[in-house]
């Protein structure tokens, strides 16, 4: 669905000007939900802008739904949608319902499909109470749910999301994430999610691309990346008695009542062996193995601390 081939973008022609995106290549299949992470200024948004036809690349090529975005911008925009978290695509002074109606006319969706989709979106995203309010009067959480609805109303094959949960409270984040997961699962919409929020990636994406200084430095499944770059793992143990706990190869990071947080290196001691050691050492009530923190994983990828070459 998305094929990127040696794509580069350089701003300015002066000697020493850096490539915001430098020789990036990847492909994303139909129905994939892919996270795109990287520090500020790494080239995430520039990539998305080239894939949506906003920017023309300096070199390389890309195809989205078989089309070259900067050459077939209008055709691409009929088959894709983009949400920039901090910018609105709605009409500021008009009631929200009017924005949806304008989008229906603009994308020439069938009246029956539009009405059915809108009814569904109003229900699942809870838009009903503020449909008649001008967009400028909506809270950030309400507006972001409206932005997501506006993005999916034209039934895009590909959805580009640039920080869609930025600034949202816990409830609004959950609502947006649940909706996106449903959309990807039920309709097979291909989604590229640009975010700093690793919770978004953990909850939604099966695959993660990491970009830094304009270059892709990792491209793998989230699980494989955790495996490769995970570093120390964490074991949470609830003891029957409040006794000191010492396990060979593990460090006690924290203790609270009967609960202990142990960390260990899976390279030195595989997780099953560490669990067995705990069980041999002390009587326990419960035990859980936490996955490596993705933020820590990404940080390690930036620093190139572990793992193989990007695939």
């Amino acid at each position: 669905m998305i094929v990127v081939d040696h794509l580069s973008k350089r701003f300015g022609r002066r000697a020493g000007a850096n490539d915001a995106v430098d020789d990036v290549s990847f492909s994303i299949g139909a129905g994939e939900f892919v996270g795109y992470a990287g520090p500020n200024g790494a080239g995430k948004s520039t990539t998305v802008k080239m894939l949506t036809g906003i920017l023309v690349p300096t070199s390389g090529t890309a195809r989205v739904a078989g089309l070259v975005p900067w050459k077939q911008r209008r055709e691409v925009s009929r088959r894709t949608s983009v949400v920039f978290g901090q910018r609105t695509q709605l009409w500021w002074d008009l009631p929200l319902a009017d924005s949806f109606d304008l989008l229906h006319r603009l994308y020439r969706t069938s009246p029956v499909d539009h009405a059915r989709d809108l009814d569904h979106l109003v229900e699942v995203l809870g838009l009903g109470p503020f449909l008649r309010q001008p967009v400028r009067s909506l809270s950030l959480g309400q507006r972001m749910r409206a932005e997501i609805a506006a993005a999916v109303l034209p039934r895009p094959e590909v959805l580009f999301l640039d920080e869609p949960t930025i600034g949202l409270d816990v409830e609004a984040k959950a609502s947006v994430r649940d909706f996106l997961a449903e959309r990807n699962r039920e309709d097979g919409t291909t989604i590229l999610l640009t975010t700093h929020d690793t919770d978004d990636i953990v909850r939604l994406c099966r695959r993660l691309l990491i970009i830094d200084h304009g270059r892709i430095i990792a491209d793998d499944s989230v699980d494989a990346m955790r495996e490769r770059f995970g570093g120390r793992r964490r074991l949470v143990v609830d003891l029957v008695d409040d006794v000191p706990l010492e396990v060979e190869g593990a460090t006690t990071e924290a203790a609270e009542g009967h609960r202990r947080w142990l960390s260990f290196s899976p390279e030195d001691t595989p997780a099953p062996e560490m669990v067995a050691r705990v069980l041999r050492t002390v009587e326990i009530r419960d035990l859980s193995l936490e996955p490596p923190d993705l933020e820590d994983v990404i940080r390690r990828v930036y620093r190139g601390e572990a793992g193989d070459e990007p695939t």
Partner: protein
Amino acid sequence: MGDTTTRSTLAATLPSSVPVALVLASASVRSFSSSLRMNVLRTLGASVLVWSEALAVIFLLTAFDGIAGWSTAEVLLLLGIADAGLGLGMLLGEPLEPPTFSQLLRDGRFDQVLTRPMSPLLWVIVNDVQIRNVGRVLAGLAIATGGAGAAGVSLTPAAVALVLGAITAMATIVVAILAIGAAITMWTIEGTEVLNAFTYGGATLSGWPLQIYSSALRAVFLWVVPVGAAVYLPTLRLLDREGIGIANQDLLPALPLLVAAFCALAVVAWKAGLRHHTGAGG
């Protein structure tokens, strides 16, 4: 149509067969009505500016008994057409002016425009129609009508068509100038006020007979930025007057070509601007 769609006030008033550009323009007019009192005052203000220009012409030319062989009424006809054309051009093209367009680029709204299945130029124009310029258009029309009447021009259908054609040509050139300016803004981001010399300056200049200008200036406003041709040539035909040099009634059939050539230049500049667009930060 489902229940939620009928909640849209647009759907209730504009059938789905109405072209989307007109619906967007209508939405922008609705925004105008959200602060009606202030916008009505601004519309009147635009009109007062044109009337004060006309009064200045009347006072000045009555004292000198015309200029370069043109009577006060004939100059008012020129002035009215030029101002109505400028007003119509600004009604559509004002969002392309440097401060507004530059802001559109900086806050990323233009990036959003580029993700729509519509011409970005048309989107920018219809999404922010500046209704207050209607004041300038109406004042210009009134002054042109008054000037034509006083100059003895009969308001035949052909004369009305000629006046409306001249206004449309002037408006088209103004929008094209503003589009070139917007293309430059895509390079500089900050924009440049230089092109105001051709929009406001061009309208002021074409509100006077071309005889009073140097041949170099006449050439610029006839052949390069043809605002002079748009107003002067149709007025010569209306008044059945001799022009100056090649700028004569015989050149009138070439006016659509001059306008089309200038628009083609604007389209080339706009497309080059889009290719150079660097997007908002982030």
